[in-house]
């Protein structure tokens, strides 16, 4: 087992050697890697490292390599959502978060593998092939930000960015034994994030520890005028993290420990809750009665929005283009050949849900159920400070196990999607192992109350050693 890397270690490493050397050692590791965590490795990043070595940089991430999910736009680096339809597309602009990273001196080392258009829980639908779980290469790394989590676990990047529409940061963080945060909706600008479901998703950081996640949030968070749904001000989480949960009130929603939960996962989570109690927190059970409807509501909303968001991929301006007698035929073939099966399925379902005669039954109904789910969170969080649940009901499943059965794949998201419906922040931290596979604890907070969940996660991390180790070299 290797030692997990972190930002402060990298910075002292850079101080001792150079950004270029540190970057090269990462590029070397990536080149030898078997887990397929990157869709594009940006070798030209060496130029930027040299520039920082030569001219210096006082940014908080000066010279630190960062891996960025392949659905976050990077000027001059291909951004494909791991879809054939975006074959050869290179954005002429940087996403807001990438601008922020660069202004702090970070170096984008590459784009990470993901489920095509972030639609999945296993990173198996990528046009570049699946990413493997570094803890067990027969298992999936989770998804959709599987690459972003796997490259942290296998030390092919110290920190990364993912996106979380229904659990896409937290699920792979849980399966790969790293820390991943889904910020409050509106905290991080979505400008440059290729939309899957606009009203649900946020960009979030993944790292080996909570402090690094806090640093990354300070860098990428804050208001951006180019995203109308962006609200918050700049934060300073990194300097306010304390090992202190004294008096923290924890709510345990029973509905998240229901059918389908792996007993070892359940046990680990309860151990974690007991640990919090030992550390001075209290817990009580809370009820969130609409939880079982969240999954359907989530998928209806996500697919409906996706069907519209993905309409722009028609072969006219960029990406893959098929042949056809006329434009409409060309577009229909481009989309049939360019999108993978799961993406097509979701577009068809979303189109159906919005079509004449079905809007009220599906989309509008889902938005109303969303209100009820959101109210569940408001009620529960009015009595407690945070909620704790298993991030995923099980540990990582086998490659190929669920890919043929869409519904079973959707059901895996049962504990993460309600959070996106409500827009609240949530973090997944490692809290145990089962058969050598990591288990994640989900800590959910109130709107814009990242500081509380970060501090709870940080304290837990300081008093346990679940993320002290790393998988061995994958051969």
């Amino acid at each position, binding site marked *: 087992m290797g030692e997990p890397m972190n930002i402060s270690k990298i910075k002292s490493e850079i101080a001792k050697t150079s950004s270029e050397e540190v970057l090269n050692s990462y590029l070397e590791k990536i080149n030898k890697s078997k887990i397929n965590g990157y869709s594009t490795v940006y070798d030209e990043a060496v130029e930027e490292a040299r520039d920082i070595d030569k001219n210096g940089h006082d940014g908080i991430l000066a010279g630190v390599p960062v891996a960025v999910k392949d659905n976050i*736009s990077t000027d001059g680096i291909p951004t494909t959502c791991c879809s054939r339809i975006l074959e050869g597309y290179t954005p*002429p602009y940087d996403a807001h978060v990438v601008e922020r990273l660069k202004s702090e001196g970070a170096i984008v080392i590459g784009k990470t593998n993901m489920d095509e258009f972030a639609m999945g829980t296993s990173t198996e639908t990528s046009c570049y092939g699946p990413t493997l779980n570094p803890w067990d290469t027969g298992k999936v790394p989770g998804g959709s930000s599987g690459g972003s989590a796997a490259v942290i676990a296998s030390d092919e990047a110290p920190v990364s960015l993912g996106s979380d529409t229904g659990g896409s940061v937290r699920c792979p963080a849980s399966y790969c034994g790293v820390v991943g945060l889904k910020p409050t909706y509106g905290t991080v600008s979505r400008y440059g994030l290729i939309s899957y479901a*606009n*009203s649900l998703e946020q960009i979030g950081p993944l790292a080996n520890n909570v402090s690094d996640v806090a640093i990354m949030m300070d860098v990428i968070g804050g208001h951006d005028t180019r995203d109308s749904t962006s609200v918050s001000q700049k934060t300073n989480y990194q300097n306010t993290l304390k090992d202190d949960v004294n008096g923290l009130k924890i709510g345990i929603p029973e509905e998240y420990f229901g059918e389908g939960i792996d007993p070892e996962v359940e046990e680990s989570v309860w151990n974690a809750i007991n640990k919090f109690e030992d550390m001075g927190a209290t817990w009580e059970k809370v009820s969130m009665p609409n939880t079982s409807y969240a999954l359907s509501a989530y998928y209806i909303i996500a697919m409906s929005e996706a069907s519209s968001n993905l309409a722009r991929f028609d072969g*006219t301006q960029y990406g893959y283009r098929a042949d056809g007698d006329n434009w409409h035929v060309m577009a229909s073939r481009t989309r049939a050949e360019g999108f993978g099966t799961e993406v097509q399925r979701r577009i068809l379902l979303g189109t159906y849900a919005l079509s004449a005669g079905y809007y009220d039954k599906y989309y509008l109904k889902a938005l109303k159920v969303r209100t009820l789910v959101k109210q569940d969170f408001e009620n529960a969080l009015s009595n407690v400070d945070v909620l704790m649940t298993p991030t995923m009901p099980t540990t990582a499943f086998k490659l190929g196990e669920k890919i043929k059965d869409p519904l079973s794949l959707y059901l895996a998201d049962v504990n993460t999607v309600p959070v996106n419906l409500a827009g609240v922040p949530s973090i997944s931290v490692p809290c145990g192992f089962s058969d050598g596979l990591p288990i994640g604890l989900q800590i959910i907070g109130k709107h814009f109350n990242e500081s509380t969940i970060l501090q709870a996660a940080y304290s837990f991390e300081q008093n346990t050693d679940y993320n002290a180790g790393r998988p061995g070299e994958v051969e």
Partner: protein
Amino acid sequence: MAEENPDGVVIGLEIHVQLNKLNSKMFCACSTDYHNSEPNSNTCPVCLGLPGSLPVINEKAVESAMKVGLALNCDIVEQTQFHRKNYFYPDLPKGFQITQYDYPIANDGKIVIESDEGEHVVRIKRAHMEEDPGRMMHIGNIEKSKGTLIDYNRSGMALLEIVTEPDIRSPKESRRFLDKLRNIIEYLEVFDSNLEGAMRVDANISLQGGSRTEVKNISSHKGAERALLYEIMRQKNIMRRGGEVTMETRHFDEEKGCTVGLRSKEAEHDYRYFPEPDLTPLRVADRVPKVTKTLPELPDAKRERFLSQYGMTEMHAKALTSDIRVSEFFEEVAKEVDPKTSASWVADVLKGELNYRELTVDAFKVEDMISIIQMVTQDKITEKSAVEVIRQILDYGGKPDEIVRENGLLKVEEDVVSKAVTETIQENEQAVNDYFAGKEKSLNYLVGQVMKKTRGRADAKEVRELLVDKLNK
């Protein structure tokens, strides 16, 4: 008095007005000044619809839309939001258009149009904001095209779609309505009608007993009249043959002046409207008082004022207020010279000369108009000469006094000649008698005397005519 309408023509219009006087587009910071730009040089990730880009609402576009709504006597909605209208077309870079759906920014207004038959009210159903698609050119014509070329410079321009109730009863009336609408919106200074694509019209039209067709792609007021005339004729002929007019969307071919049906599968739509998740709702009704204050004097009010303030005729008042630039031009002129005279010169003469040349009043300078009118009122030139001066300026340029001088239009010079003729007649009794006695040559002598007196500046032919004239009085 109602206009005659034996065929039971019912027309409703949808007018797209580009808010082209804004600085930037509806949802991004690209300039609205693209008309002379190279194709695809006035775009950004947002209006190209590049993956990951997000729209942000232009505040002034919303206030401009409210201004138009208020000027059309509409109610401004309490709360609204933008929707996505989903359909596929190469000029639509995102595969959906951001528009308004169930709560348009303005609704329930009206415009009163005047005609020889009296006043007629056309009700405005709604006015909503949306973004313009790009511009498509067919290589060849639309039916037999080899491909399309697309320019996204126009993509994302702020549009206001104004929808009328089916209150229009003839192509001529639709043109009058459009002229009035254009005039009102130009008064608001939110739009310049001279720019290409500034106002585009779709028309719904039916005859009594037939289905409605929608004619798209009409880009001018004249075009609207032609398209509607063609469509009425087409529908009448179908009905005359006992056929049935099918409900469909037709494309107006401006060059051929006819409408063409589009194949139905591509025209079949299910727009799957849903609220745009990337934009926040709008709550702007509380701004109505503020926006109302910014409303300028509108055409009808200005016409009333011209009548009472300047004492001009109804016809002049109407003519002068039917175009904001003309009304402003007139008022500038009227500051310096008698308003009634100014009204007549601007409305009767200048406007006619401009129309004839398809020019706007911008082609003529206020100071030139003032100096021309002054020359007439001071009796320096004749009215006929003044018209000539206006024509010369429009056709060749130049300043009025130079043109008068170069063309010898000063009345004073005519007087000199006429004075010389009178004197010559008085001073040469013998020659005059000879002339009346039938001696033609004596006329030549008299002309010579006049020429001598005017030092050769007079035109001999004119002098001869003048002499004959005066001798025979």
